[in-house]
């Protein structure tokens, strides 16, 4: 309807113009580049809503009044204005290529496309954008930059990968997108130095991803690294930053005075205090030396575990140069980050060589090669109940960090290991080497045809050695023997790809056809062993060969292969109607012989409405307006190999018994999982509708996308009834998941004067996720905590929803308790044999928690559990503000999510869930319910165990808005630099995670896993000073 009104309006405007006195002007529009006619150039009359476009020969004709001015424009060229004083019939308009706005070209997988010709949903981030956000890895820099792409730091552990999801979670299997770096598919991108990157393209919809059919179901992230400058000039870039990191917050725990008084201590003297400790907290009595004066300690365990001002530093140098014939790009970088939690760190060396050589007119050779070496140490058991952070939250404030004799202390109250023992008695060494690259050959026998062959590889070697001391701190904090483990692993992926691309322009028809073929193999081998009892356990002896005790050795092996045929047709008519057709056939060794192949087609259409005649009157406002529609299917084979045939499990695990007077291992063999006979490809089908618009001389750009993404035949581990007797479940194609959502992107860029420019960009996206069908498999439970599962994947609900009882407040008085009883159909209380009320939860008192008896059966059982929330945000958003004035630049980057929930496990402990005398408590317990001081939020201390059942009492709003990055830079004026023979020099200070607006009470609203926060490693607040130098 709206469309009709618009058309009517356009028609009326056109008709009205006819009544003026006019004469005819005709002419040709030519490109200054090659003197060829420009098809589809816009010709309109300044100040009047009237215009036309040039035809196939660049010709146009238009009626003009005297002294009106014609404006001739074409994207990528400078506008030309021509005042008309009389009729002209052979006006020659020559457009100069625009030097300001170069036609944007984006990578689309096996090729590139002009951005304006795109028909799929592709987000693009340039290397310059990335360099504005100093980050250890590229994935960190992707956070919030593009709608529909979420990059979540669910751990602040140095070197931890981000969890990246494109358009929601498509499958309960691995739902990570694939990364393609210079054409090579890699599992993660930790080998890349962010400064090496030229551009990142994120392929979101099926039509864009389908060319990666086999592995593109969860989106594709294409990364192109920098190539050498071809201008003949050599350039050198030096970049460095140094910064400090600190914890963003501490949780409010009781100090020694508060906790002891809360637990009933009434004395005054240190003798009384120590006696009180001895009488009440005898847990590790024999491990605590006599005569410790507990009253003299008031330890802040969070200060013990968190390090202040942890350094982060990065040094990078890149050299590039070359000519039209040959060019090169070389870089080396070193990154080093200490964690904010004691002893954790990550450091990395990276090296890169990219070069290409044009042997002659038709032959080009080149290679991209990068090498990485990294070391790291993680804070152990992160997001586990036995992490360092959790120990710190449990230990009593009167526990000393070390006993006076210097030994690591045992806690008087907590059954947890001392956080220090996880650092002092465990000595891990992790080393990774990685070599990623490709070599290619490009032949161009005629102008229209390009053949490219590419050999890519990704080799990675990991070496892990860990020594554990023999020590004894407490009953649960000891090692009876010293112990060394060592392992070595090697992953290798290679691929060979060939593509043949034919492009041709025939008058208004512009088409390009690509066909290709690829083979790849992934393989894995690991070898590891362990041994106890190193006689002289000095550092130099931490090797298996030095052990004297029993040893183990084992290896692991894996292999999978993929073969593919692919094809793509791009066709456009009159630069206005765009069509892309992709087809890919993939064969995978993970499927049975008759199910090897999956076929994945996709289609997408684009309509550049702004090129139509009827649009011309709107040209003065819109620069371009494009509609996109796409549909396609993509495959997923991300399951273990060797699932489809019956296997016998042998070896020492699961099947080996003990026999004989000598108690030897008696090796066994059986079947531990059923074969998945009917396994086939998991398929994701996606439909996408989008609009791209550009207004006001391309200063304002925006796009809107809507998509529906269905994952069908999802691999689900069908949990068979247990009478079948399998140890492991087997996958089958039974599930269906639907994601749908909107994505909005707006940016405004303006150059007010030579000295002043600014830009603002914002993006917002929504995801609605639903597990539509899980067929015969039972709900899948995750995140076990204190004997209950907090998270479920259940039909009809979003994946990974929270599961538990519904909290219904705190009993304020006995009357409320007496109303919480089993009732008959009339609602009257049912009495038991003795004439007593039957409480829905037996033994509750005022101050205890009330839950909703959902099924009204007069008791709280598992049947009263339900879905109590989702970890999916209603929407996620980000915005960037940039201001440049003379040499100064300033940018702010905010990122946020809204509407998601987080299950805060620490609240369970801090409110006494483990037992009131078994951990330190949060200060909120000072306001817990007592008869004198009722509370509607904190139940009574020493209440019923039921107070701590998994319920939405521990579920908090996880919304946040975070200032991810703020930066002020200053570029030294060229005048100053030229004296020093320096091309450019920018100094900046930058801060990360400076501000966070959230109601979440845990450490970090980003740091949860499937929405469950067990005291996960929080992200740091970082301040950096950096310099970027160009020579």
């Amino acid at each position, binding site marked *: 309807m709206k469309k009709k009104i618009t058309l009517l309006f356009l028609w009326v405007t056109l008709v009205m113009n006819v009544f003026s006195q006019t004469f005819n002007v005709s002419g040709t529009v030519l490109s200054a580049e090659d003197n060829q006619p420009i098809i589809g150039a816009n010709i309109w009359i300044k100040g009047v809503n009237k215009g036309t476009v040039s035809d196939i020969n660049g010709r146009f004709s238009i009626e003009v009044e005297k002294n009106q001015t014609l404006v001739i424009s074409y994207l990528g060229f400078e506008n030309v204005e021509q005042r008309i004083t009389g009729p002209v019939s052979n006006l020659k308009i020559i457009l100069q290529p625009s030097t300001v706005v170069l036609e944007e070209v984006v990578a689309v997988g096996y090729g590139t496309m002009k951005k304006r010709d795109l028909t799929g949903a592709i987000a693009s981030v340039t290397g310059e954008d990335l360099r504005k956000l100093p980050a250890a890895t590229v994935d960190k820099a992707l956070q919030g930059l593009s709608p529909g792409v979420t990059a979540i730091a669910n751990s602040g552990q140095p070197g931890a990968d981000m969890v990246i999801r494109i358009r929601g979670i498509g499958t309960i299997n691995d739902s990570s997108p694939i990364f393609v770096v210079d054409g090579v598919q890699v599992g993660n991108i930790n080998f890349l130095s962010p400064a090496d990157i030229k551009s990142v393209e994120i392929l979101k919809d099926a039509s864009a991803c389908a060319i990666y059919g086999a592995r593109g179901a969860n989106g594709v992230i294409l990364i192109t690294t920098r190539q050498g400058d071809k201008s003949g000039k050599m350039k050198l870039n030096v970049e460095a930053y140094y910064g400090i990191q600190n914890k963003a917050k501490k949780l409010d725990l009781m100090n020694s005075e508060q906790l002891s008084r809360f637990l009933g201590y009434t004395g005054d003297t240190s003798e009384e205090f120590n006696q009180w400790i001895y009488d009440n907290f*005898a847990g590790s009595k024999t491990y605590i030396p006599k005569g410790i004066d507990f009253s003299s300690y008031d330890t802040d365990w969070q200060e013990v575990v968190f390090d202040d001002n942890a350094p982060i530093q990065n040094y990078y140098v890149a050299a590039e140069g070359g000519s039209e014939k040959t060019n090169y790009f070389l870089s080396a970088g070193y990154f080093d980050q200490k964690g904010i939690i004691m002893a954790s760190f990550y450091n990395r060396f990276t090296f890169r060589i990219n070069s290409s050589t044009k042997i002659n007119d038709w032959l080009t050779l080149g290679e991209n090669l990068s090498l990485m070496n990294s070391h790291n140490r993680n804070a152990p058991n992160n997001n586990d109940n036995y992490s360092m952070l959790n120990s710190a939250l449990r230990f009593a404030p009167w526990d000393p960090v070390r006993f006076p004799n210097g030994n690591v202390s045992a806690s008087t109250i907590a059954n947890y290991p001392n956080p220090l023992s996880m650092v002092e008695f465990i000595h891990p060494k992790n080393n990774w080497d990685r070599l990623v690259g490709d070599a290619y050959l490009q032949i161009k026998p005629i102008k229209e045809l390009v*053949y490219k062959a590419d050999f890519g590889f990704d080799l990675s070697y990991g070496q892990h050695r860990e020594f554990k001391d023999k020590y004894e701190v407490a*009953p649960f904090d000891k090692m009876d023997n010293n112990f060394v483990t060592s392992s070595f692993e090697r992953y290798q992926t290679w691929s060979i790809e060939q593509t043949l691309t034919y492009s041709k322009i025939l008058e208004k028809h512009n088409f390009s056809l690509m066909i290709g073929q690829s083979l790849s193999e992934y393989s894995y081998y690991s070898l590891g062993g362990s041994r106890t009892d190193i006689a002289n356990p000095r550092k130099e002896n931490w090797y298996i060969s030095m052990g004297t005790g029993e040893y183990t050795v084992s290896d692991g092996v894996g292999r999978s292969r993929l073969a593919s045929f692919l094809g793509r047709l791009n066709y456009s008519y009159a630069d206005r109607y765009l069509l892309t057709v992709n087809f890919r056939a993939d064969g995978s060794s993970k499927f049975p012989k008759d199910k090897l192949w999956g076929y994945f087609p996709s289609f997408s259409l684009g309509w550049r409405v702004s090129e139509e005649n009827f649009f011309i009157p709107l040209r003065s406002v819109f620069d371009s307006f494009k509609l996109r529609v796409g549909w396609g299917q993509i495959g997923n084979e991300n399951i273990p190999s060797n699932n489809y045939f019956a296997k016998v499990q*042998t070896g020492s695990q699961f099947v080996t*018994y003990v026999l004989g007077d000598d108690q030897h291992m008696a090796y066994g063999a059986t079947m531990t999982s059923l074969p998945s006979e009917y396994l086939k490809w998991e398929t994701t089908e996606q439909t996408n509708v989008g609009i791209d618009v550009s207004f006001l001389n391309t200063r304002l750009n925006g796009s809107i996308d809507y998509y529906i993404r269905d994952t069908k035949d999802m691999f689900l581990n069908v949990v068979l009834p247990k*009478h079948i*007797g399998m140890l492991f479940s087997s996958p089958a194609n039974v599930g269906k998941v639907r994601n749908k959502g909107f994505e909005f992107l707006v940016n405004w860029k303006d150059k007010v004067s030579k000295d002043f420019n600014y830009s603002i960009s914002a993006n917002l996206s929504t995801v609605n996720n639903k597990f539509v069908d899980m067929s015969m498999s039972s709900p899948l439970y995750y995140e076990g905590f204190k004997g209950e599962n907090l998270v479920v994947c259940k039909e009809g609900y979003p994946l990974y929803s929270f599961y538990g009882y519904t909290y219904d407040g705190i009993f304020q008085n006995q009357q409320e308790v007496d109303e919480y009883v089993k009732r008959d159909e009339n609602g009257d209380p049912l009495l038991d044999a003795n004439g007593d009320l039957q409480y829905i939860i037996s033994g509750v008192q005022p101050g205890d928690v009330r839950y909703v008896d959902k099924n009204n059966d007069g008791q709280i*059982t598992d049947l009263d559990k339900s879905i109590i929330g989702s970890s999916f945000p209603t929407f996620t958003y980000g915005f960037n503000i940039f201001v440049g004035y003379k040499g100064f630049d300033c940018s702010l980057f905010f990122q946020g999510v809204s509407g998601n929930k987080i299950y805060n496990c620490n609240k369970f402990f801090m409110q006494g869930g483990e037992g009131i005398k078994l951990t330190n408590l949060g200060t909120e317990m000072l306001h817990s319910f007592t008869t004198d001081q009722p509370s509607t939020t904190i139940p009574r201390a020493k209440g019923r165990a039921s107070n701590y059942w998994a319920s939405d009492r521990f579920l908090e709003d996880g919304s946040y808005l975070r200032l991810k990055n703020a930066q002020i830079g200053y570029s030294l004026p060229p005048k100053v630099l030229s004296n020093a023979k320096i091309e450019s020099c920018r100094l900046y200070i930058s801060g990360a995670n400076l501000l966070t607006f959230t109601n979440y009470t845990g450490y970090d609203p980003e740091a949860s896993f499937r929405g469950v926060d067990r005291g996960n490693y929080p992200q740091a607040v970082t301040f950096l000073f950096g310099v970027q130098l160009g020579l």
Partner: protein
Amino acid sequence: MKKIIYLFFFVVSGCLMGCTDFLTPEPLATEKLSDFFNNDSAAIQAVNAAYVPLQWQLGGTYANEWFIGDVVSDDALKGGASLYDMQVVGLMENFQTTANNEYLDTFYDINYQGIFRCNFAMENINGMTADKWSDQHLKTRLIGEAKFLRALYHFRLMRVFGGIIKGDRTFNQHDTQIARSSKAEIVRFIRQDLEDAIKALPLKSEYPASELGRATKGAAQALLMRVILFDILNSENPFGDYDRVMSLGDSIIASKEYRLEDNYADIFKVFESPTEARFEKENGPESVFEIQYMEEATSDYGGLGRTRGNFDPIMTRTRANNSGWGFNRPTQDLYDEFEPDDIRRDEAILPFDAGDVYAPGSYDNGYHARKAALGFWRTVGGKQVFYMPPLKHPTRAPNNTIVIRYADVILMYAEAACEINNIKEGKDKLNLIRLRARNSASDPTNPDILPDFPYGSYVENQVDLRKAIRHERRVEFAMEGHRWFDLIRWGIAGDVMNAYREKYIAKEGKDMSPFIKGKHELFPIPETQLNANPLLQQNPGY
């Protein structure tokens, strides 16, 4: 130009032909079932694997059978760190079990995995042609072992759940919907398997020492005695069944394969000092069938909790000082059951309290189970201290779990004799057990210690003999996981447990719900299984 196109299509078509080969490589480091059963060794391995689920003590929760046998009965409390520590067993002990009980789920799982492995072994062994065997007798024995194990797994399930799905063959994806067989049908099936096993299995002494621990003829006979007695209340021919129990007992006794250990304490002894390991009592003269475990210092914590070390020591040791977890804590009621100076009390129960960590709301009576604790008394500073040496593995220990010992055969025999009113035979067998306990005491000649039946207020009649035998079973096998099942098979669980609840209503009984007859004899079929298999019917009352 043309050349390149030709080259391209040449490569493409070459690949098309080669692709299928490329994509279907032989799997690496993987045994295909289709080429595995080729020799004796494969057959032996298949049967070995069928024993393994007996060792499993950890799946979704800890799954030790004494969590029912001892803890649910009047003999023991759950224990542990707090109410949350194995809370699911706390609910079972208090007769508040619901169908979502994770312990039962794990227990159900483990035993059916055992059944699958028995059927898998039998079907594949039977499928092996004669030319694949180097020893034909081996086949008979292996089938016998598998049948013994299949009977044992069914029995473990049957006495907890009643009638169950009969695992008489390997199941696959198409067998998800199967109904329960009646309890009588399961008992029939178990008895048939055991009768077959008795014929097929060799005597204990016929195995070489290196094969100790395998199922024997004696084990099959003793298990059959237990199975018959377990279902005797439902028997159509109780006298015939008691006769069968006695004839099986006669056969075991006549085989001279077994004898009572001279000293009761030796049955459970593994270490005498920290340096000296003693294993000779494992699979010793009194042992009829044991679940085998070994010392394995480098095994992981579990890998699904399934390794070759025994979890019982760490689970039952005190939480104070010796880094145990303090589960399965004997009750005052059990302590009081022992006669004065019965040596067996101190072998079963440690009156041990050194400031244990125990959360409020549970009951800390200071007792701990001792039989699996792997400890011994020693003198430290002139004081007797029960020393539990550190384990080589953080959680796993080498001691075997005794399933059936010869004393049980003797007492089952006594019980059968008593029930058919053969008082003389019943009394003699009972007195064998008392004699051994008496001889194990510090002063065996003291006539006041454990005198022969009839003793105390007992007179020599069937009623008193029955009482005496039931008392004897409780003390002889205290904390060995028998009590609950004895109460059930005698049909007295409701009376005993309700009386227990009343007696200790101020303490241990406080959180208990009353035992409901007709419901609490069985536990609920796991909810997960009812959901996955609509043909399954829940037990009454759940």
